[in-house]
């Protein structure tokens, strides 16, 4: 009993630590600026107000940048789902020459940090005239090795009998892919999709470099520039409001699918 309460106390400490910054953002977003700047600090706002959101919309095109984020993360996720799953299918379920060679090269590439390629990618995107465009943000990320790898690992575990039966019935490759493999791989597809959506929605460095025009910039990068040293004193209340707008859709999405998401993360880590 004593032991169990110790464990619960430990977990409460962890939970408090992880949620404190989130609570601060949520409460701060609805606090008047005078609360935010007061000493001793108020954890609970003295009154609830929307003035930070007004201040935010005056400084940052929030709605536009939120929809930029949605389109950017959404299109990357959709294209990665299609391109990665096709490639993973070929690597996992078609026995062709060079399969092992291609797979080995892809594994090696997986360790290349994308930050190391930023300069030439920027120059390429710039030469194509894609800076400040959706294409420039999306196309370099339309497929990725980690996603192919994850899906391949999963596709390989699906029983062979499923597709042999379909093949005997005369199903072609695309049909086996579409109506046998994909429906059976939903957990892996969902995990990959969530990773891509969350990762791109939250990404800072890439949009920061690929966009200089605030009307095409996704929200995370838009908010980061608000905090930039150039603006001098940081308007904390406004930043909290912006942060809340930036995290709210993801937190809602997460709360809806959290079980699947956490299982998926565990799976990606463990599936050999």
């Amino acid at each position, binding site marked *: 009993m004593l032991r169990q309460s110790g464990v619960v106390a430990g977990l409460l400490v962890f939970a408090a630590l992880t949620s404190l910054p989130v609570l601060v953002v949520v409460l701060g977003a609805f606090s008047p600026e005078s609360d935010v700047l007061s000493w001793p600090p108020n954890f609970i706002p003295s009154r609830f107000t929307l003035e930070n959101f007004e201040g935010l919309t005056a400084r940052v095109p929030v709605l536009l940048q939120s929809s930029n984020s949605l389109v950017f993360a959404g299109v990357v996720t959709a294209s990665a789902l299609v*391109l990665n799953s096709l490639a993973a299918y070929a690597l996992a379920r078609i026995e062709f020459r060079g399969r092992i060679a291609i797979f080995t090269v892809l594994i090696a590439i997986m360790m290349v940090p994308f930050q190391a390629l930023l300069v*030439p990618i920027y120059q390429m995107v710039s030469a194509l005239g894609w800076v400040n465009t959706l294409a420039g943000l999306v196309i*370099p990320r339309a497929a990725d090795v980690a996603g192919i790898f994850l899906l391949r690992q999963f596709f390989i575990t699906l029983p062979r009998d499923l597709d042999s039966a379909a093949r005997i019935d005369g199903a072609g490759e695309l049909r086996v892919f579409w109506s046998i493999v994909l429906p059976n791989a939903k957990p892996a597809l969902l995990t990959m999709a969530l990773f891509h959506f969350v990762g791109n929605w939250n990404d800072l460095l890439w949009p920061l470099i690929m966009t200089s025009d605030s009307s095409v910039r996704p929200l995370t990068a838009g908010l980061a520039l608000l905090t930039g040293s150039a603006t001098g004193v940081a308007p904390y209340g406004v930043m909290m409001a912006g942060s809340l707008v930036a995290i709210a859709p*993801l937190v809602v999405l997460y709360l809806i699918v959290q079980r699947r998401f956490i299982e998926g993360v565990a799976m990606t*880590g463990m599936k050999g």
Partner: protein
Amino acid sequence: MTSTAAGPTYRAPRRLGGGGPRQDNSRQIATRERGRTLRATVFLAPALAVIIAFVFVPAVLALRLSFTDASGFGEASWIGLENYVTVFSDPATVRAIVNTILYAAMYGPLVIAVGLCAALLLNRKDVPLRGFFRTIIFLPFIISMAVASLAWAFLLDPNLGLIPYWLGGLGIRMGDVFASTTWALPAVTAVAIWKSFGYFMVIFLAGLQGIPRYLYEAAILDGAGAWRQFRAVTLPGLRSTMTFVIVFAIIGAFQAFDQIYIMTQGGPDRATETIVYRIYTDGFRDFRMGFASALSYVLLAITLLLGLIQLRVGTKRERDLE
């Protein structure tokens, strides 16, 4: 999303359509194989096109750029190894590399220890509200590092923040950590640990579930206490999980950027400049693209080296266990 067992345990898929006639002559086999290669090519082509265009080609271009004085404007001229010489002789750049290594040395062990701790607490069957705790502890992984950085900058602000206020109540005086050359780097590291230990917790939970119960029962029969059970059963049982987690933590640590950009801008006095932060500022603020490319290749080399060493050590450890 990497997995350790990728290379070694790779199994070739069994031949598809196994029900075909046995007495294929070699020409038919060759035709069939060509057919498969063609189909595979069609499936692979779109993804490989993107990867070749935006990973392979840039990797080659970065290597070439790293031997030039490219600025992003006008002609660049070939300067040989000069950028690399500068990387290792310019004190500020050396400092960024050292900072990155220090960051990784703090981040790796701590994020793994904290994640494992949380997983051990949550793995007990008798804990109430397990799902709730799991959801809350994983939450920071969903939140962008940019937002997390803002929140922590506010929480730690010496003039406004709750943490200095609460610590003050306990009689602990805390200065401005982000203005201290000693504490700024540990502080940005701590924020990164806060952000990702829930991820490691989930991976460890999955690993813990793979350890058979009877091993613990046997250990208890042998009179092993909690610590001894942990040493003798839990840790060996988590071996392959550890390999994955260490690779992941190292790769993550060498890519630190967001929280530094938001919280410290590399300061004070370059105390929080990391390799990626320098790639960003050199390449995209100061337009020293050749130099930034040389730094990129240093980052690439370090990441590859550490990843390979760990994979090798890890798979060897796994083999020894068998």
